[in-house]
């Protein structure tokens, strides 16, 4: 209570600096990861540290906690917490700072909690260590903390294990743990990145409430400009270990100074122009598609029920257009993609692919009478002609390419297997070089291995691999969600170019609403295996009918900038 009043007084008089980082430099093998950065955080302020992956923002937070991996060395700098230099403290004293004066929450709530310890105990441990609270005192305090962070039935949840809680609840436990000793500074390292958008909105709201109530300072680390806009009072942008720009939030969004910041903002702001709806022929028609996975139990593995991953979905993808399939994790959106590719067996319904002859009628091998073929009943051999028509791009650029194959081997594989183009190796090489150039890479890259490329480049290789067999439909399974925002914009515009050039259709599976206007003609919103709403982008995004769509749209953090 006293502290609250104190903090309020401080904010009133333009609060004093709580945490200040001065000239911090961190090296690994003599090359700098963090290069001479300085910033300071005032009492009761949310200070956002923004940057793309590898910019050093997470390392900065670990350096403040003095939890850097052993291979990294802090070569210069001071970190002052209430006028104490953290780097001058002996380790045992630093342990009294961690969790008590500075607390931290992490990106992955799934793995950040000890899986074999009750969540209540994990929070109580902090109280025991720092406040020397014992038994029931600690337990009562934990329960009240659980109440505060919005964990329902706090008393019973105390005895639960992490695997029994949902992702959002786990993150709430982490927050409770961080708040337990009423720290001065809370470091939140991408606290909502792993969460679904509706959960993210709740957690962000909670963090803000706590800040308002307790007046603590938050160092908020994120890559998401929209989240920054929602949360921050003060923003610092990091790039390659350096802070390129620092400003108060409104100033920052109104008038970004550094070209990098300008680019970052530009790429992050969703386009407001919607794609015109063009009427064209249907390429792929899903009718009442169901994919159920049996749950087996008991002595004889009886099927006791089904996981209804996809439960009666009807969709239509038109030639040369993009259908965005939106949904949160576990909604079954990726399973639809796999069912189209026949990587999982459909339980019922049909996936009908229309044979639209190419211009000039080259496609004489196909029977022109057979206009539409149901893929679900084809054998693998019968499926083969359709494999080249439907291709796929994946989310994780790191696992999408076989690390033991060179780029040309990767691209050539589909051409050889599906007999696309010439069987002559020289011609194939030429085609591979063409493809690489088309996706914005260099022909001489073809003899390299995937690990020599960055995430965005790998995603381009994945696109080239899909293009190699000249498909008509590409299933894009979250192709940009592992990419940084600037790279994301490039990959999206590449996809758009390719669409126009080759009249490609995309089934674009995503959880990210902000990119939909830039890419899609049609949207379908999916929840628990069912489509709850579909229609044109403008219709769904501007005047949603279904409650779930409305919730999704209102949960998504918004970004506004005068700068554009």
């Amino acid at each position, binding site marked *: 209570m006293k502290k609250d009043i104190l903090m309020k007084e401080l904010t009133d008089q333009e609060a004093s600096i709580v945490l200040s980082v001065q000239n911090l430099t961190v090296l690994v093998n003599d090359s700098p990861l963090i290069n001479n950065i300085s910033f300071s955080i005032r009492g009761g302020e949310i200070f956002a540290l923004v940057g793309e992956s590898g910019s050093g923002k997470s390392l900065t937070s670990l350096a403040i906690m003095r939890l850097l991996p052993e291979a990294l060395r802090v070569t210069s700098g001071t970190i002052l917490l209430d006028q104490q230099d953290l780097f001058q403290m002996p380790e045992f004293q630093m342990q009294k700072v961690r969790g008590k004066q500075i607390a931290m929450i992490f990106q992955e709530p799934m793995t950040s909690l000890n*899986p074999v310890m009750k969540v209540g105990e994990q929070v109580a441990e902090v109280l025991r260590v*720092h406040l020397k609270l014992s038994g029931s005192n600690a337990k009562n305090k934990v329960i009240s903390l659980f109440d505060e962070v919005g964990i329902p039935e706090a008393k019973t949840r105390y005895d639960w294990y992490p695997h029994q809680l949902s992702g959002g609840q786990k993150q709430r436990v982490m927050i409770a*743990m961080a708040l337990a000793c009423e720290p001065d500074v809370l470091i939140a390292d991408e606290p909502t990145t792993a969460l679904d958008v509706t959960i993210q909105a709740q957690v962000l709201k909670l963090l803000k409430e706590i800040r308002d109530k307790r007046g603590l300072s938050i160092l908020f680390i994120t890559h998401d400009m929209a989240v920054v806009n929602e949360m921050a009072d003060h923003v610092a942008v990091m790039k390659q270990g350096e802070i390129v720009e620092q400003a108060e939030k409104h100033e920052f969004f109104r008038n970004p100074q550094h070209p990098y910041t300008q680019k970052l903002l530009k790429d992050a702001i969703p386009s407001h122009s919607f794609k015109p709806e063009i009427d064209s022929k249907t390429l792929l028609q899903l009718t009442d598609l169901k994919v159920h996975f049996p749950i087996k139990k008991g002595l004889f593995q009886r099927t006791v029920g089904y996981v209804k991953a996809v439960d009666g979905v009807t969709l239509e993808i038109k030639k040369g257009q993009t259908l965005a399939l939106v949904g949160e994790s576990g909604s079954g959106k990726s399973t639809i993609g796999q069912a189209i590719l026949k990587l999982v067996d459909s339980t019922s319904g049909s996936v009908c692919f229309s044979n639209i002859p190419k211009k000039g009628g080259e496609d004489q091998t196909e029977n022109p009478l057979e206009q539409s073929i149901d893929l679900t009943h084809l054998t693998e051999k019968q499926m083969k002609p359709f494999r080249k028509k439907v291709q796929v791009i994946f989310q994780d650029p790191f696992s999408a390419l076989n690390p033991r194959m060179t780029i040309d081997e990767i691209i050539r594989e589909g051409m050889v297997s599906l007999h696309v183009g010439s069987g002559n190796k020289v011609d194939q090489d030429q085609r591979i070089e063409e493809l690489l150039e088309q996706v914005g890479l260099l022909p001489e890259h073809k003899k390299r291995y995937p690990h020599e490329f960055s995430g965005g480049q790998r995603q381009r290789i994945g696109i080239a691999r899909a293009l190699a067999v000249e498909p008509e439909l590409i299933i894009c399974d979250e192709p940009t969600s592992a990419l940084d925002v600037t790279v994301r914009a490039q990959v999206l515009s590449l996809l758009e170019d390719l669409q126009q050039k080759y009249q490609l259709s995309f089934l674009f599976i995503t959880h990210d609403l902000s990119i939909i206007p830039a890419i899609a003609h049609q949207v379908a919103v999916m929840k628990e295996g069912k489509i709850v709403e579909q229609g044109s982008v403008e219709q769904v995004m501007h005047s949603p009918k279904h409650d779930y769509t409305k919730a999704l749209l209102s949960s998504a953090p918004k970004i506004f900038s005068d700068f554009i």
Partner: protein
Amino acid sequence: MFAYILKRLLFAVPILIGVNVITFALFFMVNTPDDMARAQLGAKQTTPEMIQSWKVENGYDNPLFFNGDASGFGKIQETLFVQESLKLFVFDFGQSDSGRQISADIQERMGPSLAIALPTFVIGLVTNIALALLIVLFRGSRLDTITMMVAVAIMSISGLFYIIAGQVLFSKVWHWVPISGYTEGWEGVKFLILPILIGIFAGIGAGMRWYRSIFLEEMSKDYVRTAKAKGLSDIKVLFGHVLHNGMLPILTGVVVVIPTLFMGSLIMESFFGIPGLGSYTLDAINAQDFGIVKAMVFLGSVLYIIGLILTDISYTFFDPRVKLS
């Protein structure tokens, strides 16, 4: 839980039948009853009649897998394989070549085997884990490097060397303990100390390295970072969080061994003259007493399967995520 154990026991039946097929194939198809009869009756002139009567006497007169003479179900039942295997399932191992009941011998010899194997196992496990935790506390230091070098050296020396060197030093040169022998009760401790210590020492190199690598892997996980961020000291992180999580992979390798401790150690027991199952087996191998070897193979498999079930059950105690169903 009960249903689970029942299920696992049912699954064990085909495995044990498989074990029987393998042993049966090894012992009977290669060394047919005719060969056995010839070997037993001596190298003298043996007539087919003598062989036949020996086979009838010893119950080996049925065909191996399929009895065409019998009727109905007996076609399969009245065969050597089924009869020999079924006996094993009720732990009736028959007689050894020296005419003793194998089951009785086994019961008698389990005690001495356990007297060595159990302390070696328990003390060894505790020592290895304790040393590994200590080394993890000093990870990356010179102490860590040197200890690991010593551990590699320890595990590179043949176990036979430790036994022989131990016997020579402690028994022959220094006369601290008798060189071999066994008696029941506390009197017997003096015979057991040396083999137990040698057993522990021989396993320390490999054990310590294994546990260290498990704990180090745990140390790199996210929850350890969380624990450190809470302000816990290294020791508290290690004992409060890492130890419990590290126990999970350790359980897989360790619990399965516990039942097989009954089988004793072939080498230890024969060097130190302990009348346990290990030396029993070794003597049987040297005397080519197939009955005993077969019995021990079956017993070993049963114990191993029990070990597998125990492993699964132990997980329910250590890992809240695991529920048996």
